[in-house]
């Protein structure tokens, strides 16, 4: 259980990748967060291979943290199925939303996604026609309905062509620094909520 330190954000990473064996980039990012103090990793497909999500346990876990991260590949412009199922079932009416649902109020939600396409594809006129934040509106609004603040996404684009080795290692190290900065309150979260992308906020 994370130690409650008023100056630190307790981070929970909900990781969803159905083929961990075959993942390169997401896996490397996930590994980069191993052992970070104050950051808890939760591999959803490892915990619930049969989609039999333990709602009580998940809700208890959320209450123990201040900042949630949905880390996943950007399958069909959204999350893998289990994370969607998790949202459907864990974010119960009367608990996280609705008149009496305030369990998550004031917490932060961050999407950390990898995409196959390059960054310039995600803009008006690009191959994917819309910017990332537009694709992520369902998550943004989910956070809003749960009275949480949605931050600009941390994105790793062109993951298919990101070579193992130097570039990937640099990316993984940057992600680790980002998590540390978030944990230690070194990032202005108001600015982070307004930005297009979280990545440039961390050197």
């Amino acid at each position, binding site marked *: 259980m994370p130690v409650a330190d008023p100056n630190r954000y307790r981070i929970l990473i909900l990781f969803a990748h159905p083929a961990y064996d075959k993942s390169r980039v997401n896996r490397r990012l996930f590994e980069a967060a191993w052992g970070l103090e104050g950051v808890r990793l939760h591999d959803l497909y490892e915990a619930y291979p*049969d989609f*039999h*999500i*333990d*709602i*009580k346990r998940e809700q208890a876990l959320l209450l123990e943290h201040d900042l949630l991260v949905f880390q996943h590949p950007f399958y069909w412009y959204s999350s893998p199925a289990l994370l969607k199922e998790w949202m*459907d*079932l*864990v*974010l*119960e*009416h*009367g608990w996280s939303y*609705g*008149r009496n649902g305030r369990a998550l109020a004031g917490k932060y939600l961050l999407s950390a996604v990898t995409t196959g396409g390059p960054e310039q594809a995600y803009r008006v006129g690009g191959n994917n026609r819309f910017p990332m934040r537009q694709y992520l509106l369902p998550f943004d609004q989910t956070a809003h309905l749960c009275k949480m603040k949605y931050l600009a996404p941390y994105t790793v684009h062109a993951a298919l062509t990101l070579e193992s080795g130097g570039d990937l290692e640099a990316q993984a190290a940057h992600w680790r620094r980002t998590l540390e900065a978030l944990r230690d309150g070194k990032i202005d979260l108001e600015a982070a909520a307004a930005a297009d992308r979280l990545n440039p906020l961390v050197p």
Partner: protein
Amino acid sequence: MNADFLFQAFIYLAAAVVSVPIAKRLGLGSVLAYLLAGMILGPDAINLLGERSRDVMKFAEFGVVMMLFLIGLELRPRVVWSLRVPLLGMGGAQVALTSLAAAAGLRLMGWSWQASIAAGLILAMSSTALVLQSLSERKLLKTPGGQASFSVLLFQDLAVIPILALLPLLATLPATASEAHGVARLAAWQQVLAVLAAVVGIIFGGRFLMRPVFRAVARTGLREVFTALALLLVVGIALLMERVGMSPALGAFLAGVVLADNEYRHELEGDIEPFKGLLLAFFFIAVGASVDFGYVRGHPLAILLGVLGVLALKFAVLFAVGRAFRLASGASFLFAGALCQVGEFAFVLLSLAGQQGVFTAEQVRPLTVIVALSMVLTPPLLMLVDRATRRRLDAPGRTRAADAIEAGDAPVLIAGYGRMGRMVGRILRANGVKTAVLELNADQVAHARRVGLEAWYGDASRLDLLAAAGIDRARLLIIAIDDPEVAVKLADAVRLRHPALKLIVRARDHVDAYAFFKRGIEEVHRETFGSALAVGEAALRALGFGALRSHRSILAWRKHNEAALRELARHWGDEKGYFDKLRSTIRDEEGMLAEDGIPDLELDRAWDNAGLREEVKSRAKPPPPA
């Protein structure tokens, strides 16, 4: 029974039982413990072993034959073939260079050239028993240095045959005794033919005849008969080899290699292993006892120089050979340190050469003492070398070498190959995981082999067999034995000896499962549980429940039941507490039914929008007055 025999047996056994734990506590190997015990109990100290230690040594040398049989069992023919370069190249170079160098030294000291060559050849031999036992005890046998040592030892065993033939030609003195027996009386071409026939016989017999014989004997279900068969096999081969004038150890090795693929291999290993261990122990004690301290006291300086000279010379040659054959310097160091003593075979050759008039008695006695002392010095020397190389490097060499051994490296062992073990084995195989199976039903094993699975005959509850099947290297043991008592016994033994090994256990029912839970084993699976769930789900669907609803209801029930089972296990044995718990469990299960008769699975309430409906409706109404 002869009281003297019992007394001797008592002394030898007591020496082993007392010395090894002490030596282990001091961080020394068992071989050194036996040697020291032999020296202390020998004729020059306490003198409890009587005058017959040489006889014991001859008898106990049979342990070496067994050891080579066991080593052969671990090496498939393909592996042996891959050793041909170190075997012939390194072995040949070592024997030739060492004997030449030693002979040159002795010639300079004024020996006749015949005696010098004979002594050189004898000093080139190393001790198979000592080296292999010490290396395997230190888990070094499978490192590059260990493999090279093994190859050279095999070559030396081959070289003994021509050396034996050469000795009479080097005689300069009248022979005191010589007896030709067996095939030695035949002409040379007949001898060669006899050897070839024996080798072909072993290969053919091992390949085609032994399997039905093993199977027939295994079917009797009597363990001692199988043990007798195993011993009979090794003794028979040794006898045959002696008759045709070949080294029995080499014949046993060959037989082992031929049987390495046989499904009864692990049972054979398990049966022979204790005999080999005891015989080798007696052998080392006898070697220790044979050190002639009277002579050492008489000529301390000459003996000291002799021993050091022989060790240094052999070490230098071995190191150079190792380097020349591209062994890493650490591995060469180990190789040279391991083989630089003179072997037990030298005792036989020396006394034979003495009888045949190659040496004078004044030459035989110091040589014998030097040989014995060089053997005694090997374990401490090996310990130093191992420590030095361990600190230096070679760590990658260790892991690389481990891959080369293909037998016994399956990551999963399945004990019990009935209906369940069979399916589990196939699932693992479909996922590319190598599994080794141990099963006590000879017909099952034959069936498994026929469909192409790796299965061994043997009683999986015997730890020695599991060890032979590679439990040290395995990551997972699946216990799927029918008999619950045997399964529990095995689980206990494995947890005691291999606490790090993961265990997955099949239990017949909840009562069996409790026994495993009580022992802290987590992965316990009742054999009918999975099918009960499947039948339950099918029943729900047959009654018209939706597929996903039925499935999730089964998942919820399963989770609840697994948790309750662990809870119940804690109350097992306390009748009242158990039944109280059981009643409350059943109440809970029924409580999963909500008032409307639809099970409330707690898990998917979010899919039930009753609460949401209510809230939306209430919002449409004007808010109640404050």
